[in-house]
């Protein structure tokens, strides 16, 4: 009987081994469709961050364009008056209402374009109405004075010119007059042209500037068990050692006033964490396949070395020191307070950042009794696509010249929410970085 049973083994093996049978034609079609779906979803995942980056860049460019247009076609109170037919520019005033006033077109060889509004403040009288009346009464002399303060071209005419009487503040906006009068120029006009040959360029620095920066970061993680009575957070914390990481990017700074400014832009951060050697075990993944599970602070991944393609639940592998890399595209928004002291600007800023995951990978060398192989886990389960963080910094800038300045700023970044979900350990990445950069003033 036993011999017969062994014959059964051999007879079945000999008969079936080597036999071929063609499956249904639609089997390949099904495989092909599945491959297409996998490819499409991986491409979509890969390009999602690009869409976000493109959208952000479009927003920044749009903001720049709007600013540029505002500079060329300022829409101020004066402009509104022009639109409403209340144009009181000196030349119009001269030609219509106040013909008695000096005509600069005649007195100055060329056309003079003065700022959008010119207000005289009289400390003695105080009210704006009175000031405006004085503008009308004093228009001629005021404009003469204005010209002398702003215009370097040849001036002829009846007005007395005494340049020494005038001075401007730091922002070039207040012109002191002799006696008790001041001229406050709001929104500088740009250019004054005299006779087409002498061009007055009343330059004003733009509110926008760009900062290119680089920051070496020192990351540290706050790990929280989920639920809180679990043990793994301590195990992971002891096994993982954050390595030196970097953040680099470009920021656009918009100056609201003399002290306050808003900053936004794009940056790219690369965080590296070294994980101690450990033993990992095979278990079923979400699809029911048995693979080796690798746990890390940000999530977990599965690996299947070629020397162990069919592990059973509970099989183990030894992993050597592993490298866990997290790459994010950051879109920060910050508010900044500046204090200028000569060539130095001291500042403090605080803000939030939207961080879009570009890549989360773990690279490790696995080994069993006789084989070893480098494994890369490109897909980490539990890792969120987006998380939010806050930042606070203080720093200093040194003005090299009118356009460029150098800055350094110690920055503290902290996660507002965890970078992962549906895992045993919630991870909150924090870091301290030394931001160094160069600012270009437009």
């Amino acid at each position, binding site marked *: *009987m036993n011999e*017969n*049973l062994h*014959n*059964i*083994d051999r*007879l*079945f*093996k000999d*008969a*079936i*081994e080597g*036999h*071929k*049978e*063609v*499956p*249904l034609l639609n*089997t*390949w079609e*099904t*495989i*092909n469709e*599945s*491959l297409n779906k*996998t*490819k499409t979803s991986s491409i979509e995942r890969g390009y999602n961050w690009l869409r976000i980056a493109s959208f952000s860049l479009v927003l920044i460019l749009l903001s720049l364009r709007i600013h540029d247009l505002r500079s060329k076609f300022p829409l101020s109170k004066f402009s509104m008056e022009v639109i409403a037919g209340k144009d009181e520019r000196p030349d119009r005033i001269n030609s219509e209402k106040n013909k008695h006033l000096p005509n600069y077109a005649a007195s100055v060889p060329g056309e003079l374009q003065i700022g959008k509004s010119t207000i005289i403040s009289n400390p003695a009288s105080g009210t704006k109405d009175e000031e405006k009346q004085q503008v009308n009464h004093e228009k001629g002399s005021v404009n003469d004075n204005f010209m002398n303060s702003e215009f370097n071209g040849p001036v002829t005419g009846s007005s007395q010119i005494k340049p020494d009487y005038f001075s401007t503040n730091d922002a070039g906006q207040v012109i002191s007059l002799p006696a008790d009068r001041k001229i406050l120029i709001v929104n500088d006009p740009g250019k004054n042209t005299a006779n087409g040959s002498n061009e007055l360029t009343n330059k004003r620095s733009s509110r926008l500037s760009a900062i290119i920066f680089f920051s070496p970061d020192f990351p540290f993680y706050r790990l929280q068990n989920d639920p809180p009575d679990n043990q793994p957070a301590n195990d992971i914390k002891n096994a993982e050692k954050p390595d030196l990481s970097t953040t680099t990017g470009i920021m656009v700074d918009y100056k609201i006033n003399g002290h306050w400014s808003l900053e936004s832009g794009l940056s790219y951060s690369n965080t590296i964490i070294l994980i101690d050697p450990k033993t990992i075990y095979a278990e*079923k993944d979400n699809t*029911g*396949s*048995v693979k080796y599970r690798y746990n890390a602070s940000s999530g977990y991944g599965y690996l*299947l*070395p*070629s020397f162990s*393609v*069919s592990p*059973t*639940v509970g099989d183990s592998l030894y992993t050597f020191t592993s490298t866990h890399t997290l790459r994010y595209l950051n879109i920060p928004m910050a508010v900044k307070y500046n204090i200028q002291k000569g060539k130095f600007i001291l500042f403090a800023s605080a803000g939030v950042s939207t961080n879009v995951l570009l890549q989360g990978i773990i690279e490790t060398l696995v080994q069993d009794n006789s084989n070893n192989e480098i494994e890369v886990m490109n897909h980490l389960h539990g890792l969120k696509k987006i998380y939010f963080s806050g930042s606070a910094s203080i720093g200093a800038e040194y003005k090299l010249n009118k356009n460029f300045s150098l800055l350094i700023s110690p920055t503290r970044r902290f996660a507002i929410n965890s970078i992962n979900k549906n895992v045993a350990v919630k991870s909150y990445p924090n870091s301290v970085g030394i931001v160094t950069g160069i600012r270009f003033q437009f």
Partner: protein
Amino acid sequence: MPLKTDNFLKPLNVLIQACIDGDRHSQSQLYELFAPTMFVVCLRYSANREEAEEILQEGFLKALGFIHQFRFAGSFEGWIRKIMVNCALERYRSRHHLRAVTNIEITASNQFCDEDIITQLSVKELLKMVQLLPPAYRMVFNLHVFEGMKHKEIAKHLGISEGTSKSNLYDARVILQKLVANSVSTVKLNFV
């Protein structure tokens, strides 16, 4: 020496490399090259043709997904076959884990199986007999007879004891012998 086939101009190594690069036409060629052999493997591990096709699909998807891990060191057929067996095992573990082993009613008497008579049975009939085995018996029989695994390995793969593995193999053999005897007697009757 790279393997060449009659129907495919590309050497196998080139074909595999093209599959690693994601070339769909090469993937299709690789499927056509190995699907007939692998389908028989899947048929052995499944209860019917439909289930075998599902295992074949899963197996090829996995093989094409992990093909970059093939080191060009051993036999590619052996590698892909291992994946198919692994898929069949995963399917068994996920679906048949708690299923009780049932006895098959065999009416024929316990007869000696003559090899010459067995050759009169078609491979399809023999495959059908394997498919008729209860899933646990079928797994043990396939892993032992076709994959050449020891009971210790089988026990590890199926999450059972070595004793259970041996017992299942014995029962599988007895059932197959009875099925063959039954089939042979039918053949004899047809000849008479």
